[in-house]
């Protein structure tokens, strides 16, 4: 997959050039490209004067970052405690089945990425599924298919 990396310097320049900014910059890059391309890691390391090993270490430590491109729609099943006891596992099971991918994977056509997330903080509406930034509360098995259809 090729990318236009011309926006990288701009993303990096949104934050002060100090090691403190590392995680913030990686987040900008993740938002822009939906993953962290190698090129971006190297440019970030160079710009901040941080060793590449540290950048890679942070990129693999935190959940948000992904070294593989994510799909157009990132579907996150909240498996927080409240969601868990209200049947999040079942929702996850259904989604895995419908999309033919396991949690953490991306469909071959790059349309969907399925993830589980510890808690999105919408526990009162458990179980919760988010599609990109949109929250869907009180999801039940019959609503799962609909989730995939609408935008």
């Amino acid at each position, binding site marked *: 997959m090729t990318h236009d990396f011309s926006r990288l310097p701009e993303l990096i320049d949104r934050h002060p050039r100090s090691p403190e900014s590392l995680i*913030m910059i990686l987040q900008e890059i993740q938002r822009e490209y939906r993953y962290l391309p190698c090129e971006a890691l190297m440019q970030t390391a160079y710009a901040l004067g941080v060793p590449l090993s540290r950048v890679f270490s942070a990129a693999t430590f935190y959940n948000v970052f992904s070294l593989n491109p994510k799909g157009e729609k990132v579907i996150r099943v909240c498996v927080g405690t409240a969601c868990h006891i209200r049947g999040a596992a079942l929702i996850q099971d259904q989604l895995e089945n419908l999309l033919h991918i396991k949690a953490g994977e991306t469909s071959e056509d790059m349309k969907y990425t399925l993830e589980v997330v510890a*808690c999105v903080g919408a526990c009162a509406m458990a179980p919760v599924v988010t599609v990109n930034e949109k929250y869907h509360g009180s999801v039940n098995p019959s609503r799962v298919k609909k989730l995939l259809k609408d935008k």
Partner: protein
Amino acid sequence: MSITTPQQLEKLHRECRAKRERDKKRVIVCCGTGCLANGAAEIVEAFHKTLKERKIEGFSVEAVKETGCHGFCEQGPLVVIEPHGTFYTHVKPKDVANIIDKSIADNQVIETLLYTDPVTNTKIERYPDVPFFSHQQRIALRNLGKIAANDIREYIAVGGYQALAKVLTSMKPDQIIQEMTDSGLRGRGGAGFLTGKKWRTCASIKDEPRYVICNGDEGDPGAFMDRSIMEGDPHSVLEGMMICAFAVGSNQGYIYVREEYPLAVIHLQKAINDCEREGLLGDNILGTGFSFRIRIARGAGAFVCGESSALMKSVAGEIGEPRAKYVRSVVKGLFDKPTVLNNVETFANVPIIIVKGADWYKSIGVPTSTGTKAFSLVGKVKNTGLIEIPMGMTLREIIYDIGGGIINDRPFKAVQTGGPSGGCLPESKLDLPVDFDTLTKAGSMMGSGGMIVMDDRTCIVDLAKYFLNFLVSESCGKCVPCREGLYQLHRIVTRITEGKATEADLAKAEKLSDAIVLGSLCGLGQSGANPFLSTIKYFRDEYLTHIREKRCPAGVCKALIRYEINDKCTGCVACVPACAYDSITGEKKKLHVIHQDKCTKCGACYAVCTYDAIDVI
């Protein structure tokens, strides 16, 4: 124009308050994450659109306020008409025109939108009368659902930044710390360390610069109090931080917000920008010579970053591996400098303590745990949502009076507090008062405030497995007891849920748990065995049933159950498409059959069956 003196602030406060009072009616649309998920944004839009077309005497679109979370997320989207307090639930965009015509223009109440009390089955008109709210006492959450979250003037109108003006003009740092100490406020992040004591230590260290960090990394699954405060009342957090900064002599603050809360970041950033514009953050605040700035640091998805030393590493742009805290972070914290780290809710409590005084605060709650505590009451309880109660209220009052009891009136089984590191309390402990020390003594903990209620359909062993799985995936992996120990403990508990364990395994798990508690480096590891230890303490029988009888009484552990269709089946075929594995067959209007060889025990059929025709055996 920026505010440069306390007098100007006072003047602005009077102006804003007067403006607020001039509004005859105010429409409050809850825009917390819960209500947004249910379509609150569309409601706001509908108000704007409809009000463009219709002119109502003495009511403008400005009186429609988007506020933070009311707490009663279950019933969202919520609309409240002030000052009467008419409380509408489950509002849809199509209801908006009706609300404007009837309730705003004509003072009528729309019956169909009112909340129905599940216990008495009556409609309740005003929201303070709803039992969910009437049993609460809101201090940290005082402004949630009252003021527009994004408007600094609204905050100033209700007395915001008065506490800041008070400390800057009439109090010495030492007096502030003394006030905090006297109030008995304990850290709301979970450990319950005395806030005043922490500030005093920090202020006494002869090292500069000092930092103030607000911990908004609310990682406990099942908790969202801090999120609601950051989204709904960001200024109270900022004000609390400013007061703390003045008290300990700091000029730089950070708010660490977890990745999953993008809205909180937006609202906090807006609040910071507004404060900088108004001169409440920056150099020479209110002309007193005090300078303070706040930056937001975003988490990137790591539960362990809720631990103070890991959080500080993360703020510094490193990976969140905790360090041993033989030198406490209040002495050597961020960038090895003295650092006060408090939780969002703690900071939100600070301004009101300054305004109303330590004695007032101390009068609430119980002597060792003063004040109130916010909880997110979730799980299998009828009224789920965000609540704040005085310390000392019993679990039973919370679950049954505020929460309205268990869904479908099933039997109560356990309540889990304190997140993954906390514990489960059984029915026999329901009359315990909720405060730091009592919960700890009972084998659970206050934690940051997640309160998850479970009924008899929740398997305790499965729950322990769930939490252990969470902790294994969230362990930073630095120290052996946590990395390897929790992994092995999870393996043992998993074997129990699969019916493959023996009683010797149980003994081994207990011994291993002791080592994890004793040997781990940070709080995550040291409390990492709690999901197991606290459940085995009160629910040993359930473990033994899994081991000896190879049976899961709650019908949850897949390896130990099977689903079967009983003769209540009407042949409605609802379950057939629900089964993703084609394991249910049967003709319409005839008894259906589950083919056990294909069944993966996902429970989809059980979830969709409305005739109670599927048994879990």
